């Protein structure tokens, strides 16, 4: 994006809820229509602002889950029980409600189809959200960039976007799951935390110089990024996004 395109102030825009879609236990996708939305790149995030009757406000940042699509954006939010904003977004918001957003924010953890591949995406839990925006942008653009997604979830029912990932698998995209806590009886896939051996098996090889994007909780990102560097991936090709338990 040209710097001039976003040099103007990012103003608070009114976002109207047009749909709320349950993903997994505690995770929902909220679809907004945001008149005036300037567009975004896959991987960017948005600031959300909530205002109470008496003027009290709370702000948080969320990754955008959807590919660029006019004035429509989707946020996939995990409810944090001790959070201030995520319980409101996931439990209270319904169709027709309005909140405020501003963005898009962040110009580094982004991928555009024109950048090509190969692409290695590694996610822990809801860390898949900005990576899903990349997969959706890839799909929308008809990109055949060789892409692998390694997604670590606690169990099969905790896999966010499971059905859509099954549909997208193929055409140069390989989706690999690891289930760290519980596995279905017939499970033959990975059943442990992501480690160097798993990353080497999933590939691509560091000599192919893939663009690597890692997103998840801090310990996950630390471990994965460190393993990738140890395997020989260039640190500058490994982009990370981390969230802690206090994202609220």
């Amino acid at each position, binding site marked *: 994006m040209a*710097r001039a395109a976003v040099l103007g102030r990012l103003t608070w825009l009114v976002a109207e809820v047009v749909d709320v879609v349950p993903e997994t236990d505690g995770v929902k996708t909220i679809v907004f229509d945001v008149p005036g939305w300037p567009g975004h790149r896959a991987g960017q995030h948005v600031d959300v602002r909530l205002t109470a009757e008496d003027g009290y406000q709370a702000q948080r940042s969320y990754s955008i889950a959807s590919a660029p699509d006019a004035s429509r954006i989707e946020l996939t939010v995990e409810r944090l029980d001790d959070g201030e904003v995520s319980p409101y977004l996931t439990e209270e918001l319904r169709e027709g409600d309005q909140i405020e957003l501003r963005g898009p924010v962040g110009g580094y953890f982004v991928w555009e189809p024109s950048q090509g591949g190969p692409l290695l995406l590694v996610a822990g839990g809801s860390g898949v959200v900005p990576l899903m925006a990349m997969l959706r942008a890839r799909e929308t653009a008809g990109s055949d960039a060789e892409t692998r997604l390694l997604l670590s979830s606690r169990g099969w029912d905790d896999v966010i976007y499971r059905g859509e990932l099954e549909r997208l698998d193929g055409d140069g995209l390989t989706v690999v799951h690891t289930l760290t806590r519980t596995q279905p009886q017939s499970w033959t896939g990975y059943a442990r935390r992501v480690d160097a051996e798993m990353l080497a098996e999933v590939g691509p090889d560091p000599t192919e110089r893939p663009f690597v994007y890692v997103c998840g909780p801090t310990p996950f990102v630390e471990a994965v990024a460190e393993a990738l560097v140890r395997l020989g991936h260039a*640190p500058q090709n490994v982009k990370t996004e981390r969230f802690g338990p206090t994202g609220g």
Partner: protein
Amino acid sequence: MPSPSDRPPLVSRGFRGRRDNSPSDRVPPGQYVTEDFPVLSAGPTPHTPLEQWDFSIVGEVDELRSWTWEEFRALPSEDVTVDIHCVTKWSKLDTVWQGVSVDTLLDGVETAAEYVVQFCDGGYTTNVPLEDVTGGKAWVAFAYGGEPLEPEHGGPARMLVPHLYFWKSAKWVRGLRLESTDEPGFWEVNGYHNYGDPWREQRYWGD
């Protein structure tokens, strides 16, 4: 300020908020207080061995200065208790650090520079006006909470410039480059504000 003046903030139906008991004069607009210490960085954590570590003052200076880890740790240090504010919305109050004041590192340096670029292992940079890191406002910190600074929080040493958003406090810092022109750093060219005053909510370009 990010709120446009022609429209009051939109009230969110049914939102009450948690409201902690933090003193409002210590929490900048749009921030919330956390007890944790979230980690944010754009790439893998570098691990430079201490015997290969040095800290240098370069750029528009009369002579280059450099300290090995041992020399750096032999410099007078200060205990600092400050509030820190991350642009991703969290603030953490009363954080306790130990570090060398930038005044100590620049003591006796002659320069006409007005800006400083913090440079780091891993390639990160961030820019600040020189006057924002002098006069007791900034440190090169090597301990947090009485313990050596952990790598994921920027160890062995990171900048501490607490009056600006925390991306202006570079992790894994290896030196300061003094410049006569302002050279935007890593996040500053990626959409974030060039100065980053949390009290004026200078998060992004145009704020």
